[in-house]
């Protein structure tokens, strides 16, 4: 098993993200129907499917592939998720630009850059019932695992597991921000759609990366 993968595998990674959204579009809209307006999966699927058309057929640098995905989301999705995920992927791409291989250190820098991009747009904190509830613990789990000396593949698995726990934590939360916050107490008992799509994306990112590591 390898401790890094080539940065020319952008197509593999981004295609995995696109497939994950396409496969879960109906599920995400159903979740959104409970506390939002039921279109989260539709809009995400529209943006990610368009990104697939814009993705070049041959090998592409991870930085360029993520930047392209982010650009499509920013240009075409709108809503809240367009800017949030658009900036997330663009900044992740920026953090690995120029790297020949993706090491745990580069990957951690990508997660940090993506998180900071989202935090620069809104002021959601952990506990507000947003995708921050998925992303913050996922990044922390990855960093802690690398810090403890785990291999890259294990750290990725721990990241995905933490993302899932973070997503599940939103079920018992009352939304403090975004459209669901208008529901107040009525938002309790339902998963947050953004936290759920964030988990789906991080899980796909972990699985695709682990595949490239031979795990």
């Amino acid at each position, binding site marked *: 098993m390898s401790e890094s993968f080539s940065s020319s595998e952008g197509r593999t990674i981004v295609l995995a993200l696109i497939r994950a959204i396409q496969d879960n579009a109906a599920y995400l809209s159903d979740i959104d129907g409970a506390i939002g307006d039921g279109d989260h999966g539709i809009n995400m699927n529209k943006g990610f499917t368009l990104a697939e058309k814009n993705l070049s057929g041959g090998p592409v640098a991870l930085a360029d592939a993520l930047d392209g995905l982010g650009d499509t989301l920013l240009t075409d999705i709108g809503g809240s998720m367009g800017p949030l995920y658009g900036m997330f992927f663009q900044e992740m791409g920026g953090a690995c630009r120029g790297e020949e291989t993706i090491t745990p250190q580069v990957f951690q820098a990508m997660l940090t850059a993506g998180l900071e991009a989202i935090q620069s747009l809104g002021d959601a904190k952990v506990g507000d019932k947003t995708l921050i509830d998925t992303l913050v613990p996922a990044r922390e789990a990855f960093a802690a695992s690398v810090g403890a000396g785990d291999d890259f593949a294990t750290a990725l698995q721990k990241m995905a597991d933490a993302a899932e726990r973070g997503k599940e934590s939103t079920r018992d939360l009352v939304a403090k921000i975004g*459209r669901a916050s208008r529901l107040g107490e009525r938002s309790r008992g339902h998963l947050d759609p953004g936290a759920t799509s964030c988990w789906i994306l991080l899980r796909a990112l972990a699985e695709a990366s682990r595949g490239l590591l031979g795990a």
Partner: protein
Amino acid sequence: MQRLINDPNLVVEDMLKGFVKAHPDLVTVTDNPRVLKYVGAPVPNKVGVVTGGGSGHKPAFIGYLGRNMVDAVAVGEVFSSPSAKAFYDAFKAADGGKGVACLYGNYAGDNMNVKMAIRMAAKDGIEVKTVVANDDVPSAPKTEREKRRGVAGEVLMWKVGGAKASSGASLDEVIAAAQKAIDNTRSIGVGLTPCTIPAVGHPNFTIEPGKMELGIGHHGEPGIQVTDLKSADEVAAMMVDTILPDLPFGKGDEVVALLSGLGATPVMELYIVYNKVEELLAAQGISVYKPYVGNFFTSLEMMGVTLTVMKLDAELKSLIDLDAESMGITQFKRA
């Protein structure tokens, strides 16, 4: 779904094509398919007025493109904010060299996309300032006014901002007038039925037959009270009683009263409600200087109405009085 559509995922595209064909004297396309502009835009040496928002609210937002009104509009999916790129392209389409006033409603997605679009425009040297409408009284307590949503009061903000820009005012003066308009404006909605986003195919909230929801939002956001359906006069009283104390409005005030249908309520019924609204305002010594009754800001096929009241001063009166030509509002001074 009893709806006249083709591909439910392309309702916005199909609607835009028809809109441009129907109003060639007022609007035209731009390089961005999600941005329409007034045929005269950019007007040289005039502050550009831009707005944008999700679709499904006709005449809002593109229906207010026109002379002495809005110069460019960013168009989103149904009930979903336009992209940052769309807002940015709208700024460019509207910029006549004196800066751009972006007058929009307080929603999480719009706030983020406008913020990013302003960063993009700054790189081009286009100065953009904003006013964020928050006229919907039931959406948050008065102590948290910054959390309130923007609803039909946005129409009056555009009327005032558009008129001020046409007077040759600076960007700061346009922003100040639009801000004053929304600060002096309060709104409330009443919903009688839910509405369905075509691509979703079913309503995502319910209002039982025989019930109504006071304070409902433009996308079905929950209101403050679900009651048995009342008479038009009683509904008028509930709306007036909720919004008047909030500013507050009082004896001697002159106001604009805008009563908008939410999409499926017969226009006839809007006049039935307005009759009582005017009477209740008059009973409190508040006179309606300028009424607007019709479908000004809708929510797909929701049944219900919104009431918006704006307190006037001399400046706001003259701006409300200015001629306007747009699909949503066309008015001329009597000779």
